């Protein structure tokens, strides 16, 4: 549904997006993840034909964003970071205006705007001025605006920013309910959101794609992790790794000392569960076993590793 190839946006002095390529299948929800200023918004703006790319191409539903922008725009719904609302308009009036500029035939305008309002739970504020609405309502009016013409592709820039926890859950449910009919690209820097909603993931950092793929594939790792202490006192890591490395299917074993508690990572070729065998080996050696888990990369760890965000946290600097 979405094909992006070598998309680049260069400004006079800096490169905001640098040869980004990825593709999204129909009906998927894709999380676009990255720290602030990574180029998420710029990429989305190029996909929505708000700005042309300096280099590269993107096609949406088979239409090129540079050559056929009108066709692309008919097929996308876009919710920018700040919802594009007119505070002097009433909600109903606003939605009907959007319906008209999205090309919905005049006799369907009212019906479609009411449907969109109902879907995004803003029917009860239909006659209210947008300027008087709370932030949560405004965001939902923004979402209603994006889905009003039933677009094939929805592009949402931080759709839940500034919500309270209840609104976040409601909005996530709403977005999930839209998937299937719609292909959804949503940007966020909240990792829970990606876990809760997205099937696949594109991590972007400093304008470049750090990694992309299905969420399952990215976070899966075969193997197990143990935490043990050695009563007799172990001096070398090799003492701890040696008993495991001879098991068939094990590709690598590493042990690290954490103040007397050793952490042993056992990587395996397949996803066969070795934990009972590992436990008996450890206990047979007379070690105290504190923890035994299947290995998995946490999204948080992966994100921090890829974006290198741990260089002296801001909190420490303030202190």
């Amino acid at each position: 549904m979405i094909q992006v190839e070598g998309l680049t946006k260069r400004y006079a002095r800096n490169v905001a997006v640098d040869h980004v390529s990825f593709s999204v299948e129909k009906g998927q929800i894709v999380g676009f993840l990255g720290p602030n200023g990574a180029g998420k918004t710029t990429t989305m703006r190029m996909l929505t034909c708000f700005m042309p790319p300096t280099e590269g191409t993107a096609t949406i539903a088979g239409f090129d964003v540079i050559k056929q922008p009108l066709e692309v725009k008919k097929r996308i719904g876009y919710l920018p970071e700040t919802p594009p609302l007119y505070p002097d308009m009433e909600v109903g009036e606003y939605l009907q205006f959007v319906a008209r500029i999205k090309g919905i035939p005049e006799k369907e305008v009212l019906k479609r705007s009411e449907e969109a309002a109902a879907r995004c739970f803003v029917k009860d504020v239909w006659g209210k001025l947008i300027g008087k609405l709370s932030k949560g309502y405004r965001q939902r009016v923004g979402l209603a605006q994006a889905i009003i013409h039933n677009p094939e592709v929805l592009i949402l820039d931080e759709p839940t920013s500034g919500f309270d926890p209840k609104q976040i859950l409601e909005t996530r449910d709403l977005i999930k309910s839209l998937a299937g009919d719609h292909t959804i690209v949503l940007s966020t820097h909240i990792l829970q959101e990606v876990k809760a909603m997205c099937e696949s993931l594109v991590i972007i950092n400093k304008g470049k794609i750090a990694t992309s793929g299905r969420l399952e594939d990215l976070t899966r790792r075969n193997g197990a992790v143990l935490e043990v202490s050695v009563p007799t006192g172990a001096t070398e890591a090799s003492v701890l790794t040696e008993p495991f490395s001879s098991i068939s299917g094990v590709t690598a074993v590493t042990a690290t000392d954490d103040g007397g508690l050793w952490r042993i990572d056992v990587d395996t070729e397949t996803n066969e569960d070795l934990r009972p065998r590992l436990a008996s080996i450890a206990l047979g050696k007379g070690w105290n076993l504190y923890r035994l888990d299947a290995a998995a990369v946490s999204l948080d760890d992966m994100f921090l590793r890829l974006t290198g965000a741990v260089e002296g946290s801001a909190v420490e600097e303030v202190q």
Partner: protein
Amino acid sequence: MRNVITIARKELNSYFQSPIAYVLIGAYAAMFGYFFWSLVYFFVRASMQAQMTGRTMPMNLNELVIRNLLGNVGVLCLFMIPMLTMRLFAEEKSRGTMELLLTSPLRDWEILLGKWIGAVGMYASLLLFSGLNLVFLFAYGKPDWKPLAVGYLGLLLQGAAMLALGMFLSSITQNQIAAAFSTFVLLLMLWIFEWMSNMDQNMLTEVLTYMSLLRHNESFIKGVLDLKDTLYYLSVSFLGLFLTARSLESLRYRG
């Protein structure tokens, strides 16, 4: 075409949803009312004096009242137009609604034409309000309606040209005050170019005088429909629209 109408209607509505329309209409009605009253007062006194002294010189409502009145409206435009145009694009940009317009299936020219027509509509409704005063002239006197109609057409054309220039200046900034002030200065410059003709007669002053916005209105106000002046206003309008289109294009590149 439907897109243009949709945008124009939205623009016109938004004037009336904000205080701008009411403040402008109120201020304009007060100023116009004052001009009207003082000119009619002068006319009545002059005609009474003429009767008392027994000199029956012909006094013409069109010449003495309407012509001066419309001339004054031309100057009032200088102050009103910037207030009508300042928000056109600057507000959309600062609110982020520009993203909605530019990512909807609209062509750039549909957006700017719609906005311009909306602003011209607002300006026309201001002119309509001034017409209320003139009803009294028709009730108590016999002015000729044809030169009056031509005069109003002139004001409309002049306003449309000024609005197009103002819209362009609004499209290059996010700040409404900056848009309004630069429009005011531009219109003022185009007005005072006219004074050059009093100082010297050479190529430069002739060109500058020709560029003057208000000067081209003189024939309209006298009731003369001049093709040259009509073309002038139409081409200035077109220039304003064209520059706005270029400015929207550059906005896309700069983001």
